[in-house]
């Protein structure tokens, strides 16, 4: 099929050249019959186009472009200004935040100090109370110590009296026994001291 197409292709070229040479002989472009007409109409149309474009339309388009450019520049300027303003605002804001942070820190420190002071005060009070109570208790203990020694002597005397009575069946003089007990306790005290 390709062969057929190629043959037809070549054949039609032959045909075309034959027809052309038979008809008018070459290109219509080289026929000068309407040259002057074309030149005249070219001058008229192109001249009109040039005059209308240069006097009416192009200045308008140029104005449009110029006004748009200036508008855009203006907008950019405004945007720049607003950006600067917002940056200032941000700086201000940062400062406020920093100040409030410092304030908060101060407040916190003050509160902590106060609490610590309170704790100290209460502790010292407590310590004072404790010391007083300890003192009282020590006094009581001393008193008890003293009284217990006498009580022990008394008990010792009585029990020895009782013992003697049981053992011997006789009542002894109470004073004698107590003096003996006193001697003994003194001896034991001395012994303890010696030890």
């Amino acid at each position, binding site marked *: *099929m390709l062969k*057929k*197409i190629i043959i*037809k*292709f070549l054949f*039609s070229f032959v045909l*075309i050249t034959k*027809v*052309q040479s038979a*008809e008018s002989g*070459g*290109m*219509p*472009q*080289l*026929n000068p*019959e*309407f*040259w*002057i*007409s*074309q*030149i*005249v*109409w*070219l*001058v008229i*149309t*192109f001249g*009109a*186009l*040039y005059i*209308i*474009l*240069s006097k*009416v*339309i*192009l200045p*308008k*388009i*140029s*104005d*449009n*472009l110029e*006004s*748009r450019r200036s*508008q855009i520049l203006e907008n950019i300027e405004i945007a720049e200004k607003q950006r600067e303003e917002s940056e200032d605002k941000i700086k201000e804001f940062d400062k406020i935040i920093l100040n409030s942070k410092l304030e908060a820190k101060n407040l916190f420190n003050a509160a902590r100090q106060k609490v610590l002071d309170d704790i100290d005060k209460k502790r010292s009070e407590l310590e004072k109370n404790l010391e007083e109570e300890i003192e009282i208790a020590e006094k009581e203990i001393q008193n008890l110590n003293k009284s217990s020694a006498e009580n022990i002597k008394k008990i010792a005397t009585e029990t020895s009296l009782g013992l003697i009575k049981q053992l011997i069946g006789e009542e002894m003089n109470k004073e004698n026994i107590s003096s003996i007990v006193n001697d003994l306790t003194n001896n034991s005290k001395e012994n303890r001291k010696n030890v």
Partner: protein
Amino acid sequence: MAANPMNQFNVYRIGPEIKLGNVDISFTNASLFMVISTIAILIVLNLGAKKKSLIPDKVQLLAELSYSFVSKMISDTAGTKAKPYFSFIFSLFMFVLFCNMFGMIPYSFTVTSHIIVTFVLAAFIFIGVTIIGFIKHGLGYLKLFVPSGVPMVLLPLIVVIEIISYLSRPISLSVRLFANMMAGHTMMKVFGGFVVSLGIVGGWLPLSFSVALTGLEILVAFLQAYVFAILTCIYLNDALNLHH
């Protein structure tokens, strides 16, 4: 014969024959498409220029993009001195672009596929640039033909070559546009003819070629308008900033 791919370039009279003295300036299909292109440009750009919203809609964007596209092209190639010629180059670019693009519509006529049209434009640019060069630099403009840093022995040869290349500018500029447009449209017509002649069985291959070519031709239509405008800028640059 309708299948002749060159028939699409035929110029024929529309309406009565207009004669100015001895010269025929009748309204033809070429004139019709020049007028259509001009009006289309004016309508689109006027719609785009009328609205003045900060955020442009589609038409406004189209007008402003083409404005800044041409403006950037000029400032890149010819510098700030070329600013007074902005309107001319913008009109030139838009005119060639719209003529090329309207030529892409089936059964329409491509104004720029005629050598006489492109040659008149190129010759006008050439003469204008030469006049600007002589006004700006006086006879010093002739230094354009004497490149710096060339050995004295080679200078006569180089100057001749430079002069020839300078004089061939309008021809190369006009033939480039005309030949591109004509070749592309002829190709499309030829492949379109193949689709019909090969029928339902074999016509798919040339049809796909036709589709691809249409895309290519739209690209070429834009590219050639761009090239035409940018070469004008380069020539203008030579005339304004003489540093050859």
